[in-house]
């Protein structure tokens, strides 16, 4: 019995050794043919994302892609976005990222992932066949995924992500409530004075003015930044971020004063400072407020909450007629390719296919988001078309030449909340931010 066991063990050892030799020979031979080899039939790509509203459409596209190429694409949904964000960071630390993943965060996080070798550079792929892939995509959407020369993060110049849709954040207004307040539903306010006047009329009719998820502070940041760009122009905003202009400057105090004015004139919905965007969306969809500050993703959200909602899109009101109005926008969601993935080539091929006109039209129709492919934009709804017109005014921190320091951003947003609840004055906030900025710059963060 013992000798039988020994023989079995020896047999297993021989088998393992033989398999190893075979594998070794297979690995050594035929290296020159590697690039021309077709994708293995059972190849699998794993994609991580957080977009609950797009899961069904992704799965349908994955099926189609498998039928077409034999490559199985497995979309793995991890929501909510906070949990997803933590998962991606933990996976990066453990070098266990999937073949394709989305990244939530600011440009500095994106840069950190690239510098750590987690994200593949895609410029050469984009430039193939006279830049065919690059030319199909909206420039502003690509810009979010691009690092230009002399970027402040020290990342090598290139494109590192593939936008799968585009978005921008504007204001929407309820046409029915406009009519009730005696306002013209076809002519939304364009200047700050008109906006104040419209809110006064809405208030007189017992209708709340502006609602937004300002409990999630980044939305405050977004509107404040829009107003600042219009009041002082992009260069002065960038100079402030570089530390050359102080937040106590008169123009910044004017930006903060607009929030004070909105609070004092009761232009804001009740409880806005602790409201999450989902509640703000419910409030607007249920016609409890006449204006909302929200992104183009809201078209899908409002459609789910109140399909009969009659609303229009408008740019944030202009304060300085001499400067253009800017809004945040660019790539709504982007997919990145893991640079260490063994299926990197297949992953890039899949993303190329995903951003082709046909797939983009399918995604735009199913998820009511603006497509990232220029040639798929003709099939979008009227309201999305209105949002799409705003793409000409788009800017975003992810393609600014300089970004604000994290602690200053937090104090900036929370400070505006404090102004709204009457705890701080615009001048106080300006001085506080100027002091904090100096301290943080001294730390070199």
């Amino acid at each position, binding site marked *: 019995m013992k000798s039988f066991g020994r023989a079995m063990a020896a047999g297993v050892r021989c088998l393992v050794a033989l398999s190893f030799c075979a594998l070794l020979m297979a690995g050594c031979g035929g290296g020159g043919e590697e690039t021309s080899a077709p994708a293995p039939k059972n190849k699998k790509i794993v994609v991580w994302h957080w977009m609950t509203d797009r899961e069904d459409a992704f799965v349908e596209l994955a099926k189609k892609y498998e039928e077409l190429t034999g490559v199985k694409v497995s979309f793995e949904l991890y929501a909510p976005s906070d949990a997803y964000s933590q998962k991606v960071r933990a996976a990066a630390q453990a070098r266990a990222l999937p073949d394709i993943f989305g990244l939530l965060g600011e440009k500095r996080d994106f840069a950190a*992932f690239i510098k750590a070798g987690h994200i593949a550079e895609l410029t050469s792929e984009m430039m193939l066949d006279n830049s065919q892939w690059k030319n199909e995509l909206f420039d502003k959407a690509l810009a979010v995924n691009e690092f230009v020369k002399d970027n402040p993060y020290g990342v090598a110049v290139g494109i590192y992500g593939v936008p799968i849709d585009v978005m921008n954040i504007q204001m929407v207004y309820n046409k029915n409530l406009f009519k009730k307040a005696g306002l013209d539903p076809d002519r939304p306010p364009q200047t700050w004075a008109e906006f104040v006047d419209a809110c006064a009329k809405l208030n007189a009719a017992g209708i709340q003015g502006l609602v937004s998820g300002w409990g999630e502070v980044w939305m405050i940041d977004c509107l404040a930044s829009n107003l600042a760009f219009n009041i002082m122009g992009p260069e002065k905003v960038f100079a402030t971020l570089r530390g050359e202009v102080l937040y106590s400057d008169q123009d910044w105090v004017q930006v903060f004063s607009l929030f004070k004015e909105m609070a004092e004139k009761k232009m804001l919905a009740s409880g806005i400072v602790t409201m999450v965007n989902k509640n703000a969306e419910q409030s607007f969809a249920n016609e409890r407020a006449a204006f909302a500050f929200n992104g183009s993703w809201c078209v899908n959200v409002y459609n789910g909450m109140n399909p009969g909602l009659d609303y229009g899109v408008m740019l944030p009101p202009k304060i300085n007629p001499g400067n253009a109005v800017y809004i945040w926008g660019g790539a709504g969601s982007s997919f990145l390719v893991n640079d260490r993935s063994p299926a990197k080539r297949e992953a890039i091929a899949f993303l190329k296919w995903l951003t082709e006109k046909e797939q983009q039209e399918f995604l735009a129709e199913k998820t009511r988001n603006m497509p990232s492919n220029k040639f798929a934009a003709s099939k979008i709804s009227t309201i999305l078309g209105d949002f799409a017109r705003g793409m000409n005014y788009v800017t975003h921190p992810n393609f600014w030449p300089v970004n604000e320091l994290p602690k200053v951003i937090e104090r900036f947003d*929370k400070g505006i909340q404090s102004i709204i609840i009457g705890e701080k004055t615009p001048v106080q906030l300006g001085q506080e931010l100027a002091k904090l900025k100096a301290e943080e710059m001294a730390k070199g963060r």
Partner: protein
Amino acid sequence: MAVLADKIKKIYNFFHDAAPKWKAGAVVFLLVALELAFLKFHDSRFIWVTVYGLVTVSLLFVLIANFAKRTFGMFVFILPALAIFATFYIYPFFKVLQLSHNAWDGIAPTMDFIGLGNFKEIMQDKIWWGAMRNAGYITLIALTFQNILALSLAMACDRQIKAKNMYRVIFFIPPVLSEVVVGLIWRWIYDGDYGLLNYALASMGFKDLVHNWLSDPKTALTCVAIIHCWKGFGWGFMILLAGLQTIPKELYEAARVDGANVWQTFKNVTIPLMIPVFVLVAILTILGTMQVFVLILSMTGGGPGYHTEVPVTRILASMQGSSMFGYACAQGITFGFILMLVSFAQIGLSRKLKQA
């Protein structure tokens, strides 16, 4: 082996039987020694592997000391638990200690050692200490309002009343509910426009009190604290009820025979015998309340401004919002250290009360 085990056991017993202040002193001393060693040898992997190994081996020896006199074979059964403890408790502690001395964004392969820089910054971080104050305020309300409510209801249920089991179940419903669900429901109740609370107040003629409770800095923290107490009093209720049921009924009968009224019985029988239970409930309340987090996120997100920020939301903000992993770890260590000191102080206090 047996002699060595005896010696180790003697040292172990010496620390085990020491007064809380000595225990606290020893822990502080060990932490300071560890900190000094870390500052000196932070870049020496050898030293840290050795320290990690030593801590694990010390634990091993404490176990040997306990088991060697019986059967050495029994010790083998402890090894899996020890391996899990060393991997999931001791190693993360060293890792957090290491990270707290570095400036790191959580992604980059390298970190910048900044010594005590993060801790110095915490000392000057007014928002952090404001968050500690907020957590302290919620804890104070929980210690008083929540525990008085729990004790009153436990005493009511300890009597021979009808359907007392049903009351026990009802009082224990809030603790088993999800904190997120509780937060979202109460957020709706507190809503300024369509909230049930404002509707009730307006119906009863208190229109002056109607406002947005969670967006008003004067009421936001108290509103959250009240919900935390509502959610948490069930635990205190169960523990206090269990404590009350251990008091022999003969003592109450004897007190009644001696002519003691209800208050005198409560003061002279219930309170002295319940002190260990009060201490346990107080420690659990403090540790649980200081770490309140989910309720805050689902109700206010820390706002308006910084009015409902607590230490855990600040740690999360440093880690996720600002990508300052090192700073977040330093905040975690500082917070843990403070909680540990509070716990030691409470144990010391309870001993004194028992002696009194």
